[in-house]
């Protein structure tokens, strides 16, 4: 377990920017991606705000109608198997490979693996099933299955890039891409792979997001400037977002051999489950508390050494409270006061993508030298007492960062990132 794991490439298609420079600027300046949003042309839908990706049109079930930035070349035979969020993932992948200085040829030979996370495309599934049912399942989109079920990202990207190492997908709802990154760390530590590509992506559309409305998990606040306000007393649910994040991790000696730029080192991770409720957090954040402690043990660091925590906090009343209590148990009770922020106040909640996106933000914070703040947080919930929750981003460069994620069923995952020596 002595092999070091470096982050050497990042790609972002997000509501706050479509490359690392734009994302960094948005995080530093507290620029959010929320706008008034009409999900499905029905004025009675009570959800009025979302955080869309710019410069893409992928709102049709036919790939012929899609548009994306011209700098990305997606061949037809790849495009036809993609879901809308697969287009985001493809573009983030191209970006991350270029960022890491890698070509397609570098991905051959079995040394590179691919772990992906998305919920699949409910939108495509819905459309394809309706079409196939209407024709007695005799005809329909021949790529309907591979473009819509969970796993669509790994099917498509492995085939397109000729990746022959470990390839699979992770499904733990909003902890999915954090699981993908955690297990990617293990693949390298165990000597199974020398390079792992981690992909998280989701769609922003009625089919993916609005099923959260009857759960009362989405904010009904119509003001884009305040709808997503993690840890605030007035929070009333999360704001949906889509996009993709790609993280390339490499075993240290490989990264050094090719003189790769290193954003951050991944020095540990941990996971623990609440074992409590199918849909809501443990009231005390018990699983998340244990996941953080396991990650700290794995990384062999103490709570007071952590400079910054990127919280999972999505702006829901129950989830944010549970996380605040878990953070107090792990940090405040140990006399530690790291800066804590939820960047979902800027981005909205990217579901399966959230964990990888925020691990990417942590890597940027370490590399670019800033600590993200809590956009839209004005009156912290009383359960946050003792937590250091600055409103504005700070210019301090964190040396040690902890990234939290939680998903349905009480799955909790934490990563620990360190500034490279």
């Amino acid at each position, binding site marked *: 377990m002595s092999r070091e794991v470096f982050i050497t490439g990042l790609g972002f298609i997000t509501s*706050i920017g479509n490359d690392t420079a734009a994302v960094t600027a948005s995080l530093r300046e507290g620029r959010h*991606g929320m706008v008034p949003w*009409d999900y499905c042309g029905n004025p009675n839908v009570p959800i009025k705000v979302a955080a869309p990706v710019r410069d893409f049109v992928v709102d049709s079930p*036919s790939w012929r109608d899609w548009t994306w930035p011209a700098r990305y070349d997606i*061949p037809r035979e790849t495009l*036809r198997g993609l879901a809308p969020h697969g287009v985001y993932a493809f573009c983030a992948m191209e970006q991350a490979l270029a960022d890491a200085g890698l070509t397609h040829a570098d991905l051959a030979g079995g040394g590179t693996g691919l772990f992906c996370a998305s919920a699949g495309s409910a939108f495509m599934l819905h459309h394809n099933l309706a079409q196939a049912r209407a024709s007695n399942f005799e*005809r329909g989109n021949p*790529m309907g299955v591979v473009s819509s079920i969970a796993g669509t990202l790994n099917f498509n990207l492995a085939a397109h890039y000729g990746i022959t190492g470990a390839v699979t997908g992770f499904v733990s709802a909003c902890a999915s891409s954090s699981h993908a990154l955690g297990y990617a760390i293990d693949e390298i530590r165990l000597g199974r792979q020398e390079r792992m590509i981690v992909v998280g992506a989701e769609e922003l559309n*009625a089919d993916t997001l609005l099923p959260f409305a009857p759960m009362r998990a989405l904010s009904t606040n119509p003001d884009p400037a305040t709808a997503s306000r993690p840890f605030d007393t007035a929070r009333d649910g999360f704001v949906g977002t889509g996009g993709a994040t790609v993280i390339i991790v490499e075993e240290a000696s490989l990264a050094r051999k090719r003189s790769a730029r290193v954003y951050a080192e991944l020095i540990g991770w941990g996971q623990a489950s609440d074992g409590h409720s199918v849909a809501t957090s443990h009231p005390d954040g018990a699983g998340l508390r244990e996941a953080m402690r396991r990650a700290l043990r794995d990384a062999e660091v103490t709570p007071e050494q952590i400079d910054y925590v990127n919280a999972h906090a999505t702006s829901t009343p129950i989830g944010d409270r549970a996380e605040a209590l878990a953070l107090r148990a792990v940090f405040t009770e140990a006399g530690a006061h790291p800066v804590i922020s939820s960047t979902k106040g800027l981005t909205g909640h990217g579901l399966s993508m959230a964990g990888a996106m925020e691990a990417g933000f942590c890597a940027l914070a370490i590399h670019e030298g800033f600590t993200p703040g809590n956009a839209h947080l004005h009156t912290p919930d009383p359960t946050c007492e003792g937590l250091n929750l600055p409103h504005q981003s700070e210019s301090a460069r964190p040396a040690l960062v902890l990234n939290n994620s939680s998903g349905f069923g009480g799955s909790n995952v934490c990563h620990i990132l360190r500034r490279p020596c």
Partner: protein
Amino acid sequence: MSETSPPQHPPSPPARSPLAKFPSAVRAAHDRFLNSGDIADLDTVVIAVVLDHQPTHAKKSGEITAPDTARLIADLGFDSLALAEIVFFLEDLYKVTITNEELMSITTVGELRAFVRAKVIAARPA
């Protein structure tokens, strides 16, 4: 706090022609065929649909033709799913039905062209 840029909208796409992104000459040929029934115009559309579905990796540089003798799988790089996509595309475009057995019997561009001609002419009102 400010928005980063204007959002993509509207959320519901307008209904588009299946040929909306094809060259204007192909769309014009399609319109002419529907109006006049000229078989040469139908051939133009079928060849354009074949080329549109051809895998990029199989295209030789500069090659933009699909001669009658070209085998769809062996020469043009199609797989069976891409062939099914062509068939469904043409079915939708001309409101005809092509069975799996019929599809299996087609191996070359010329056979596909002749087959679509026969199907579409049979389906046209006399």
